């Protein structure tokens, strides 16, 4: 049981996809303008990750070695299409906000990376937990980045004004703000890591 829990937990801190593995940065930076968008993207990616990890772990023995990557991509793309259609139907506003980054989950390196590195070698149960952990880790990273950006860039959190009379630094809501925030966060985590060792 503890080992299974470890599979889940490793995606959150030790192998956090965004801050440690540096995977899937494009959507992270592009949609992290508001926390709502960040959570939406996180949930969408988690769903795709879970689905593709489970299916690939199930069919890993029937896929020929040579054509495995195209097979994985088809599975992933199927789940992305499901997500896209669901999002269009149930939350069109979020779909508009995320724009082209929803279909681009297909090329999110986290999903293909986990399929290749984990799901193709492990059991369905472990792959499910791995996918869930990675998805939660990704979502948390998105919430952190988008929280910083929304708070400093617009003076709000989840669309609510937090501090009255706070003059927001508009640049953090811009693309350059995303790059700056992630650069500084990575540096900060490096400092923490260096201190520990």
């Amino acid at each position, binding site marked *: 049981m503890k080992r299974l829990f470890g599979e889940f937990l490793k995606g959150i801190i030790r192998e956090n996809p965004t801050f440690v593995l*540096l995977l899937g940065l494009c959507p992270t930076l592009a949609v992290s303008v508001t926390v709502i968008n960040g959570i939406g993207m996180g949930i969408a990616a988690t769903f795709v990750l879970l689905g593709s990890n489970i299916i690939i772990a199930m069919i890993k023995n029937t896929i020929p070695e040579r054509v495995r990557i195209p097979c994985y991509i088809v599975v992933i793309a199927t789940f992305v*299409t499901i997500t896209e259609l669901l999002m269009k139907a149930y939350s069109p506003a979020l779909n508009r906000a995320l724009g082209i980054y929803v*279909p681009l989950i297909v090329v999110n390196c986290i999903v293909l990376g986990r399929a290749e590195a984990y799901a193709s070698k492990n059991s369905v149960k472990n792959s499910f937990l791995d996918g869930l952990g990675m998805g939660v880790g990704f979502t948390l990273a998105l919430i952190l980045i988008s929280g910083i950006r929304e708070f400093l860039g617009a003076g709000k959190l989840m669309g609510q004004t937090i501090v009255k009379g706070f003059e927001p630094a508009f640049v953090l809501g811009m693309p350059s703000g995303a790059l700056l925030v992630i650069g500084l966060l990575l*540096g900060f985590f*490096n400092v923490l890591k260096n201190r520990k060792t």
Partner: protein
Amino acid sequence: MTLAHFLTIFISAVFVYNVILSRFLGLCSFIAISKQTKPALAMSLAVMFVTTMSSIITWLIYRFLLVPFNLEYLRTISFILVIATFVQFVEMVIRKISPPMYRFFGIYLPLITVNCAVLGVAVLNIDMFFINGKAVQGSFYYSAFQGICVGLGYTLAMLLMSGIRERLELCNVPKAVKDFPLGFVIAAIMSLSFLGFNGFKF
């Protein structure tokens, strides 16, 4: 279809909405391969070629296969498959025809399949140049041209970045921000300067 349209596409794809610095597509390769100018150039040229060709191919598929049969929802699957196949095909052709070129591009080509810029520009073309499932006039030329321009924008950002990072090699930077963190901060400053082109918005 006028010259002004093409100029608009050029300026917005290369400067205002630069793939890397404003849309964040292809960021992984941008950070990973921009340490030296030569590999950066090889990667950029490969990306430019693939974005152009895949823009053309995906436009044809969307217009003549998906739209007539009402299969627009298969866009993502069909595009990524075609791009993956195309990249594999190009790799095989280059290996056969020109071994020196293969050594130059070789390891970067397979990476392009999962480069968001390629699928991104294909999806973007469909979003921009199809209105309610109908191709706007001249949309084929716009798509192809946008493919080239996105590639150019990628090349521009890649060359600027690799030039800066080559010089940084000689600088004494704190250990914690070495490599990636500093790379992102530099990209942030570059992105900030590209913001100046926003005045060109049409």
